[in-house]
Structure formats: structure tokens, C-alpha cells
């Protein structure tokens, strides 16, 4: 498999001979010569030529002259060939990509790595219930050892999150370490540390991508969920990235009941900053479990969202997270499958490995990177992951005509709303989820609670305007203004 960091395109080479052609290309005067050297028969040249054209079209291969003249650090691409044993033994290489993904790979394609639970914000829907740093957090050396493992396993990239990852003092050191070890980095941030200097550093690298989180196209909508001043912080960070010349960074939006009507405004905001809009699904995970009933889009809004996504196609990224909406019509761009424990997973700040970042609960805990064998052993030998890679039964959904397009939806969304894992998604567009939730009786077992909680102890986390953590968060003259007759709007 090849992954292009710039285009986010994944190419699956189904012939060992084609791989040999690619390995030979750089040392041959022509592609025809490379084919001959790799043992391609004359009768197969046309097929291999078309395959190479496909790879050229997606920029996986480039003209030789371009390679020779390209500066070493400014090529907008990241190409790698994943592990020698990417496909488990016994699997034929000419199966479909999604079929192979569903039964798992011997290395993840990418993974989410939450570096810290520490966060300057207290978003009401935080997936990891972040706020306070966990004293057991992986050390710098331990993080570097994890990166070494990921390099050895040839994981394409990590999505770094938290918490707010940039508040870790060694954040930039770890980012540099990862990219120096051929592990690409995409990280999510609220923008608190993205000043001009940081933006210029990021703009100078082709192997780092940034997602600035924003959950409202206006301060009123955003700050009600993410906290006072967070809109201004994100907008400033975006401006810094744009001014530094960072093209194509992501504006990452969790779609809620309160911001569905702002999709066009989000798109415009991203366009204005030379960025790309990325919409993701609200999950009832972490603190999100508490606000799910109030924030998850209504059935009508889900239809509105699907139509909007369908109209915008690949202009708008989704993290492949809305495949539960596909039964509305044409499948949305992406693989339309759950990758948990099969091709992705989560490493949390203390080294625990979960099936996915939306499922932080002991039921989805596969192991810990600190144990003997580290991450590699967890990924390859965890009984939980082995189970997730088994063919899924689909349960009650199997008989539904939409099952092939929604695959039963999101495992975590079902789990944290108290629905069975082989049942419908709580936002099933056919209404089966609502029906299943309706029959849960008040006396029945309560839905499982998220496994960890690092929320700030003294900050109430509620939707809407919250009391400031410190009086000076709202007024720089707090404690003085009332007594000295100074205007409340004065600032320094």
C-alpha cells in the first residue's frame, strides 16, 4: 500500500510484480524498461501501463525530472510503502481493499494518539473528558519509543490529539521526532499555541497537517460548547496559519444540533483562510455522553447534513464518520466502514490502547504500550482486536435493506447509548435506532459510562455561557474596576 500525505490518497498494489516495477523505476530509463526488468510480459504491458497511469494521476509516482529538481523538504507529498507483512499471511492480494480492511491489517494505517489529558478548555462534548493532566502520562522517552515502534511497523501517520496536545512541553520535540522517523503527523488543536512562529514552522513542513477545532461559525454558537474566548483563539490561529502560507490546513467541526445551519458559513470561513473544512460526527463518548440528547442532530437535520455533504463531495472532509447516513442515497466519499481495531486504534496519554478514540471504556481496552512487547504486541495479539476483525454478524440489522451501506453504524455510538453492538445505530436513518432506544425501560440498566474522567474539578461544564475559570478571563481589571471606577471594557 502507498499513502500520499498531501492528497490523503491510499493506493493498494495488488500485484507483487507491480511493486517490483515501482521499486525498479528510479533506476531505469523508462517505465517500459522497468516493466521488463520486473518481468512483465509484453502481453501485459498495456495493463501495467494503465496501472502506472493511475498511480501517476494520484501523484504516487512523478516524472523523473521533477524528482531530481525537487527540493528535499518542500514536496507536498508523503509516500510510503507499508509493512512487508501488511496483509496477513494467507490473504490473497487481489481482494477488494475494504474486504481486507474489515478483517484487519498487521499494522494500522494510522492511529489517534492522545498525548495528554491536559487542556485549557472544557468542551462539553470532549470525547476523552479532558482537562487535567494525568501524572502517569507517557514520558518523552516513552513517546519516542512508541514512535520507533510505529516506524518499524510502517504506520503511515498519527493523528495527535488530547486534551490539547500543544500544551505538552515536549510537543514540538515529539512532532519533529515523528517526522524524522517517517511517521507523518496530523494534530488537532484549539489553537492556543499557534502563534506566528509556530504557524511558520508548520508551514515549512510537508509532513505535518493541522486541524483547528471550531464548533460554531459564530462566537455565540462556538463558545457555548467550547467555552468563552475559544472562538477568538481558533480564528486567530487560523489567521496565523494563513498568513504563514500554510495552505490546506483543516478547520475541524463537530456537527451539532446548533451548528448544522452554519455549514455554508464554515465552508466560507475555511475557504477564506485557504483551509479545508472537515466535518465530523458528534459521538456520545466522554463528556459527549452527557450532552448527546441536547446536541446530536435531529432526524431532519441529519437529512439536511447528508444532502449538504453529497452536494459538496470531496471538497469537504468527513473523517469517514457519517457512513451511517449513506442509506439516504449515494454513499458518501470514503470507505464507509468502521476501522476500530482493524486498521485504526487509539493510544491514550497513559499508553492504554483502545479500539478507537470514541470508545474509551474498559470493554474496548486492548492493552498498554508499557507492557512487554509494546504497541506491536497489543495490535497483533490482543484478543479484543482479534474479535473485532472477525466477520460481524450484523444482528438485527442484517435483514435491513440498508445494511450494506451503513454496516450497522458506529460501535461507540451504540455502546454509549445502551444499544447492543449488533443492533442499529442510535441515529439510524431508518428510525430503527430511535425505536430501539424507545423500548429501553427506565428500570433497565443505564448506558455504560465512559471509562476515564479528567475534567477540571472546578469548572462547570454545561452548554451555554459558563462562569469564567478566573475573574480576569472576562475582565482584565477584575477586582479593580468596580472600586476604582475604571471602564469594564478597558484592555491592555
Amino acid at each position, binding site marked *: 500500500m502507498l499513502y500520499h500525505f498531501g492528497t490523503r490518497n491510499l493506493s*493498494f498494489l495488488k500485484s507483487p510484480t507491480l511493486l517490483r516495477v515501482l*521499486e525498479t*523505476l528510479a533506476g531505469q530509463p523508462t517505465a517500459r524498461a522497468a516493466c521488463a526488468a520486473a518481468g512483465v510480459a509484453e502481453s*501485459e504491458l498495456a495493463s501495467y501501463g494503465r496501472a502506472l497511469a493511475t498511480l*501517476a494521476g494520484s501523484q504516487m509516482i512523478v516524472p*523523473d525530472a521533477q524528482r531530481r529538481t525537487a527540493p*528535499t523538504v518542500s514536496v507536498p507529498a508523503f509516500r510510503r*510503502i507499508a509493512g512487508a507483512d501488511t*496483509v496477513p499471511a494467507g490473504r490473497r*492480494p487481489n481482494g477488494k481493499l475494504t474486504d481486507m480492511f474489515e478483517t484487519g491489517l498487521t499494522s494500522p494505517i494510522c492511529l489517534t494518539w492522545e498525548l495528554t489529558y491536559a487542556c485549557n478548555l472544557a468542551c462539553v462534548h470532549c470525547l476523552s473528558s479532558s482537562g487535567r493532566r494525568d501524572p502517569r502520562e507517557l514520558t518523552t522517552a516513552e513517546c519516542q519509543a512508541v514512535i520507533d515502534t510505529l516506524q518499524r511497523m510502517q504506520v503511515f501517520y498519527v493523528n495527535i490529539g488530547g486534551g490539547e496536545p500543544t500544551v505538552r512541553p515536549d510537543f514540538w520535540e515529539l512532532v519533529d521526532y515523528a517526522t524524522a522517523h517517517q511517521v507523518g503527523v496530523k494534530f488537532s488543536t484549539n489553537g492556543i499555541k499557534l502563534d506566528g512562529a509556530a504557524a511558520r514552522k508548520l508551514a515549512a513542513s510537508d509532513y505535518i497537517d493541522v486541524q483547528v477545532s471550531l464548533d460554531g461559525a459564530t462566537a455565540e454558537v462556538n463558545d457555548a460548547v467550547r467555552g468563552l474566548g475559544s472562538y477568538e483563539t481558533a480564528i486567530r490561529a487560523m489567521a496565523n496559519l494563513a498568513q504563514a502560507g500554510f495552505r490546506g490546513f483543516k478547520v475541524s467541526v463537530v456537527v451539532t444540533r446548533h451548528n448544522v445551519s452554519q455549514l455554508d458559513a464554515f465552508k466560507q470561513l475555511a475557504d477564506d483562510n485557504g483551509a479545508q473544512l472537515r466535518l465530523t460526527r458528534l459521538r456520545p463518548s466522554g463528556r459527549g455522553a452527557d450532552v448527546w440528547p441536547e446536541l446530536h442532530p435531529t432526524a431532519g437535520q441529519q437529512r439536511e447534513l447528508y444532502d449538504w455533504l453529497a452536494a459538496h463531495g470531496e471538497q469537504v472532509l468527513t473523517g469517514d464518520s457519517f457512513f451511517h447516513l449513506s442509506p439516504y442515497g449515494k454513499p458518501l466519499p470514503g470507505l464507509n466502514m468502521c476501522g476500530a481495531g482493524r486498521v485504526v486504534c487509539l493510544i491514550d496519554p497513559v499508553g492504554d490502547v483502545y479500539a478507537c478514540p470514541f470508545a474509551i471504556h474498559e470493554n474496548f481496552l486492548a492493552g498498554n504500550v508499557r507492557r512487554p512487547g509494546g504497541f506491536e504486541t497489543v495490535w497483533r495479539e490482543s484478543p479484543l482486536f482479534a474479535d473485532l476483525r472477525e466477520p460481524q454478524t450484523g444482528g438485527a440489522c442484517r435483514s435491513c435493506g440498508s445494511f450494506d451501506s451503513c454496516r450497522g453504524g458506529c460501535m461507540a455510538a451504540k455502546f454509549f447509548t445502551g444499544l447492543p453492538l449488533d443492533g442499529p445505530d442510535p441515529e439510524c436513518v431508518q428510525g430503527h435506532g430511535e425505536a430501539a432506544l424507545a423500548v429501553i425501560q427506565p428500570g433497565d440498566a443505564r448506558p455504560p459510562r465512559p471509562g476515564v474522567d479528567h475534567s477540571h474539578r472546578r469548572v462547570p461544564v454545561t452548554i451555554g455561557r459558563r462562569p469564567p475559570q478566573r475573574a480576569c478571563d472576562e475582565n482584565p481589571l477584575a477586582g479593580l474596576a468596580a472600586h476604582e471606577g475604571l471602564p469594564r471594557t478597558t484592555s491592555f
Partner: protein
Amino acid sequence: MALGAVTMAPSAITQEVLVNEPVAVVPTAADHDEAEPLATDELLVEEVSIDGMCGVY
């Protein structure tokens, strides 16, 4: 497409990966029946645009 001069990996990082790392991706020739004709291009390469996978944010 004419079979012209094309190559991979223009950057220092990827060059290092491609040159220095073992890159036998899919099962070895022993696992694959080389005599079996590849009837369609779909059998040679499959591409998909991914924005993370579902399970990554």
C-alpha cells in the same frame, strides 16, 4: 499513457524509506500465482481517498 520515465519518492524522507526499508508489501511471489493472468486493471491497483479512517479524528 506512454511508458515514459517516471519514478517514485522525490523527497529525502520517502527516498530513505523506499531505498532502505524492506518494501515487499503484499504476499510474496510464492503466495501469488504469477502464471494467473491479470484480466483487468482493477486487479493491479485500487485507489481510495481516505481522510483518516472512521475511528480516527
